[in-house]
């Protein structure tokens, strides 16, 4: 059985090509092969959300997707979305509310929150909490995160 595959994909707007093991997870590929260490491996079984990435515009768990499955697709990480400015409002609000402590969950939390913002509408606090229920944070107690997201939602008028 073939173990290694050639893949080509766009990561944060840059074309990359690599030969990868079939079993390598997307988050490990980004971290190990490309040095993009912003997405973190927290549980490696799809529960904690620390490895959240965006693939073709949809958020996914980087530990539940294989690198080979990203062939031909567009992957965006916390680094790219920070540089493009897309997350700036959320990052500012997270900073002002201290919506992070150790910061290990934060990249995933921001990508999940941005997904909610992109859907539009005015979700309630309860709905914000529900949307974040796939992202584990041990430090904050979640309240400041909800406050920060709520502020950005209201700021958007």
């Amino acid at each position, binding site marked *: 059985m073939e173990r290694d595959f050639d893949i080509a994909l766009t990561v944060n707007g840059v074309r990359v090509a690599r030969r990868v093991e079939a079993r390598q997870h997307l988050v490990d590929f980004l971290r190990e092969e490309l040095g993009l*260490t912003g997405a973190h491996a927290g549980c490696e079984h799809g529960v904690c959300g620390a490895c959240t990435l965006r693939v073709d515009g949809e958020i996914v768990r980087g530990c539940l997707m294989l690198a080979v499955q990203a062939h031909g697709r567009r992957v965006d990480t916390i680094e790219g979305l920070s540089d493009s400015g897309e997350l700036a409002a959320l990052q500012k609000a997270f900073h002002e509310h201290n919506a992070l*402590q150790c*910061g290990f969950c934060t990249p995933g939390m921001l990508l999940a929150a941005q997904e909610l913002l992109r859907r539009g509408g005015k979700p309630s606090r309860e709905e914000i*909490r529900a949307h974040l229920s796939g992202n584990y944070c*041990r430090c904050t107690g979640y309240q*400041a995160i909800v406050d920060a997201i709520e502020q950005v939602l209201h700021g958007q008028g």
Partner: protein
Amino acid sequence: MGKAELPLHAPARQADKGYIGQSVPRPNAQRLLQGRGTFVDDLRLPRLAHVVFVRSPHAHARIKSLRLQQAQAAPGVIGVFDGRAVAQVCTPWVGVLGHLKGIKSPPQHAIAIERACWQGEAVAAVVAESRAQAEDAAALVEAEWQELPVVVDMEQALAGRPVIHPELGDNVCFKREHDTGGVEDAFAKADLVVEETFHFGRHTGVCLEGRSILADYNAAEHSLTVYHSTQAPHMMQDIFARHLGIPEASVRVIAKDVGGSFGIKVHVYPDEMATAALSVMLRRPVKFVADRLESFLTDIHAREHRVKVRLACSKAGEILAFDLDDLTAIGPYSVYPRTSGIEGNQVVNLTGGPYRHQKYRAKLHVVFTNKNVTCQYRAVGHPIAVALTEGIVDLAAQKLGMDPAEFRRRNLIPDDAYPYTFPSGIKFEKLSHHQCLDKLLALMSYGKLREEQAALRKQGIHRGIGLAAMIEVTNPSPAFYGVGGARISAQDGATLRLEPSGMVTVLCGVTEQGQGTEAIFAQIAASAVGVGMDKVRVITGDTGVTPYGGGTWASRGAGIGGEAVLLAGRALRSNLLEVAAAVLKVDQQELDVADDHVVNRLTRESKLPLAELGRIAHFRPDTLPPDFQAELTVTRHYTPRQYGFTFTNGIQASWVEVDTATGFVKLLKHWCVEDSGTLINPMLVDEQLRGGVVQGIGAALYEECLYSPEGQLLNGNLADYLVPMALEMPDIVCAHVETPTKQSQLGAKGVGEAGTAGAPGAVMNAINDALAPLGARVTAMPFTPERILRALRKVP
């Protein structure tokens, strides 16, 4: 201005001195917000090797044979090692302390030799060029086991069925009895005696970043650099030095970003010691990162207790005496170097702590079992002591038909009674229980909430209010560990340096785990020196550059490290004024530092920008008087000594609704009023409290490491072990009373553990308050729907 001039806590101070008390965002959060932090697993070193451990599948078994050859031949493998091989480089340790009289534990090795004593104990190490290759090879290690009798139940362990370490004689690691005398007499004379047995589930920290270590041995220098996700770099420096035979000053421990710790990352772990030893053996950098399954099996667990507690009181509701018997199980070894006796010891020290009774008796047994080890986890012993105290107090109030808030008011130590010695021997400098209680009741509109509760009960909606008063150990003196022989620093130091550009660099031994240490040090330094926070940079977590210190544990960072920064800041400012006086040829007494400038003390007019002072002092000292030397780097240290611990106090309240059909508990709201002395950054303090409360809620409702009778961990993954997530958590209202400690000039006490200390008791009391009209009561955490339905007699 003299030494004590900084109006640190005056209400309307000027901005140049006033960062203390302000909710300033953390400067160091920016990198984390962009995913540009540096956690251990983010580092890349040349020739980096990866280690994976073969772990015992049995809770207790003799290793008959380990066949390593096949693994050794696997692709990418650099070496495969058993316990004996690693023991050639790394000496074993024993987790005992002199001041815990009679505590015993057998020697423990980095990798087990001959026998594994819990499921998950490492028995071999596989090092390869990649983690995947190491994991592949680990699967090829063949072990032949002889299973041994297992003891997982603590009562059985206490009875010695069987004894895990025969050379120790029994399974009792540590026992303690404390008795003020007169307890039996108080119970005999009491109008009311209430008794209850409480059970606390074994749970764990679940840091989102697993334990991580990258050890880099330099054979030419016989030196070791360790990048470590740790709370206590200097403690680890000492341990690596002693157990690997490397001079202390040749070991450098660097803790960059740490992805959560909560006490999990302040202990010596065998697999981490093995990683350092392997780096020495292989003369190259070796990395170990615990995956989630390994974390559940090997990160310290905590809080498995069974406690019988009795309370005696008068008809008028006066508590006369407490009597308790605590049994706790810690796994097969006492953890090094802090020991696993401390948690139970804290239960004995702290139970009944907010109240003014004088008679107290407590008995503690700490026993070995064949489960993973337990040790100090956030709030160490407090969640148990608080829940026991507040659970039995509520029961007494209920039996007397007295409102629980009123019952507490009658018994809390009066605010004017300090200094005060509690019957367990601990001393309180100054607490504010009554102020906190009053503030809490007002904050939550207690009377109205009771009315709402009564009205809803008539509609069949079962809501409950739970209160939990608490005391907490913070700012520990050497009495915690040092007196027992542990090489754990009780003091911390801070160095402040004026850079030529007028900026200030702060170096401190206390570490940052996201709680905001570096931010508050910047606030204190900027305030003490007289510069803007934008002019301050803070470096922590590196034994190679920071002053020696204890690091982060026991809520000591702000109170001890912060005081060192304050003292160093004042000293630096004094030195700056000396330089300025020499430059300006005026009396130093005429000058002050404010807004990055030396100013006239009275007119506040700028006399010399610090950038100019820095330029002259560093590059043109020839223009200063010939006998004058500017000292722009100062170091100061601080050790709390007057009290063993600087106790804080607070009170929490929980408001819950119990669904009596499903047994589910909905958390509606939570309040916390805390007195942690001087508040340095209220926003960070509140977030610490909330995070702590949520961790305590996890203990109360969700979290438990479940073991089978064979000692197999049944739910060691994040899907089966439940942790609090955003949806289930309530909004948490925080408020403060400020009673600065007079032991330091900063006045700060610790706050990092208060939330976790009080929340389980508050939630338990709220559930029992909701269930009371139904004649049901729960006393075993976590309060799962099954346990609640059983209490309601809806399931067998």
